[in-house]
């Protein structure tokens, strides 16, 4: 388990919105089922004093953090103001901000992520499903019932692809330590390399699945520095060039980021890459792992 645990007090920004309110309820249902603190405060400017599913709402992150002793936040705010919320969270002294929001202008992300780093605040996302550690904490939108506790870490650029793999792992009897959606945008806070570094320090985690896609080179960068055994899957091997495949970051530009080239580079680094998602559990279990890469 990495980034957060049972004792982490969580703030939800955009608490009174549709998605914010729906997921406060779900996150707290999970927290109650495992005896964690869960979401202890909500933030929506101008709606301080209200309650959402029994959780008190504040006007600012600083107020919420001080009143409820919270150290982490999950953002469900609109794209146009999400960069601002990341900086507000960093300024309020939070350790961790998980940004679910998609369609944030990339310049906003670039500045907010840099600002947060300056304030020692870890940013996960944006455009991600968040963080889920079975038996410890749900900080985001991952369906809890798919996961089960165990030795495999999962890091992914895509939300639903993550659920698919977690579902496959669980069905195969392989549990997960932490599942991290790092996000599908061109610029993100935590990268594969950052999350792999955290997993390397986690006693529970024995191997990590990385789920990448076309665009950029963060997968290779992560694999190069990985200390734990890694299995990879890369989506977008049959995507047309120069077309944006849903995620802002999933585009091949100027010949960079092609999914097949990425797979070849990962294999050159000694990382087993699954052709199909369904092969992943067998690769984890079957000793196909090249631990000496």
């Amino acid at each position: 388990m990495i980034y957060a645990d049972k004792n982490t007090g969580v703030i939800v920004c955009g608490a009174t919105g549709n998605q914010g309110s729906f997921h406060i309820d779900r996150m707290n249902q999970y927290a109650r089922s495992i005896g964690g603190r869960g979401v202890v405060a909500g933030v929506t400017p101008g709606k301080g004093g209200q309650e959402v599913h029994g959780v008190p709402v504040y006007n600012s992150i600083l107020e919420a953090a001080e009143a409820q002793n919270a150290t982490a936040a999950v953002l469900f705010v609109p794209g146009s103001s999400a960069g601002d919320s990341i900086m507000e969270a960093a300024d309020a002294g939070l350790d961790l901000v998980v940004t679910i929001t998609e369609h944030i202008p990339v310049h906003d992300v670039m500045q907010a992520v840099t600002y947060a780093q300056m304030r020692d605040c870890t940013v996960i996302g944006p455009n991600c499903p968040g963080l889920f550690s079975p038996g410890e904490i749900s900080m985001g939108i991952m369906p809890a019932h798919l996961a089960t506790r165990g030795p495999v870490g999962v890091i992914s650029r895509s939300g639903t692809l993550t659920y698919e793999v977690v579902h496959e792992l669980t069905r195969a009897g392989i549990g997960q330590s932490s599942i991290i959606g790092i996000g599908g945008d061109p610029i993100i806070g935590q990268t594969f390399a950052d999350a792999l570094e955290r997993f390397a320090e986690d006693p529970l985690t024995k191997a990590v699945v990385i789920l990448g896609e076309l665009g950029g080179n963060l997968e290779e960068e992560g694999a190069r520095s990985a200390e734990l055994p890694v299995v990879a899957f890369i989506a977008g091997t049959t995507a047309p060039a120069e077309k944006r495949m849903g995620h802002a970051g999933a585009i091949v530009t100027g010949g960079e980021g092609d999914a097949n080239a990425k797979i070849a580079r990962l294999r050159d680094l000694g990382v087993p890459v699954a052709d199909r998602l369904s092969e992943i559990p067998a690769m984890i279990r079957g000793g196909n792992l090249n631990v000496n890469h």
Partner: protein
Amino acid sequence: MKLKEYEAKDILQKAGIPIPRGVLVKKGSDYLVSPDIKEAAIKAQVEVKEAAIKAQVEVAGRGKAGGILMADHAGIRDTTEKLFQTTIKGLPVEEILIEEKLQIQHEYYLSITIDRSQKAPVILFTTEGGVDIEEIAQKNPAAIRKATVYPLLSKVPGYTLRYLLNGSPKEIGAIIQKLYSVFMSQDALLAEINPLVMTPDGLFAADAKLILDDNALARHGIQENRDLSERERQAAAHGFSFVELNGNIGVIGNGAGLTMATVDLINRMGGRPANFLDVGGGADRVRVAHAVRLLGSMPDVTVIIVNLLGGITRCDEVAAGIIEAGVSQQIIVRLAGTNEAEGKALLSSKGYRMLDTMEEAVTAAVEAAS
């Protein structure tokens, strides 16, 4: 969204970067767009001895594809007419920029983009301008100077400019500074001047490219993303990402990665996907119904596969949307996640084919489509 050359140049000029004198003409407008431009045109025609006639189409390698013609003063009109009659890589020429030909002493390349790994703007500069940067990168990578700028700085630091210029005329430093401010203030993903031309009268941006962030268009007063096809535009209006492919299996997924993996798996199993459609996070009944109808309206689609894992998406909403759409094609559904049981029950009650795993669903869709 890609801006056209003249739009990009207009923004550069407002930021203080010199551009060649010129005039924009539109097809069928008897040359002249507005009274202002008419005056400018007359002036340009009088003063310009030789002109570059440039089709305003967004294609790579426009010059090589015949999109830029040269003409002397007397031949400007005929050459322009001729260019209006052609297509450039299949695109019709609707607008032409007529510019004075510059007296080139040297051509430089300058661009600013985003370095995804460094999470910062990156400036590329080389004294070997006038050709594609990819070409320079292949032939003479050492000629390219590259520097990132800390994103919270409002200006490019002097030492970075000195590094980039490496002895080139220091007036270029001022152009870099101005292009950086355009890049930051316009939410650009790419700001490029190629070539940046040195003439006896100083520096000019002879060609310019600006690509704006689609997620920031509203902030800059742009209502519509011109880069999208008609069907992609419809799709975007309903809140999903859509890319047309050429097959007969319609694909609906939630989440870009899962949808991409579904398209990949169909290809791997020998099927032909007709599209990529990500209904997005938190898709409700109405959006799902629109998605199914959109694919239902594609003439080549014989089977539709709906592969959804609910996170922020609720399965019961999805099921209701599929039923509501009521299209004639066979629909193969795979649903798992939030409110899964309710979604499954709803679909079964209406006789839809539901499968438990993505591989089973893709197998069934490929079989049904062949």
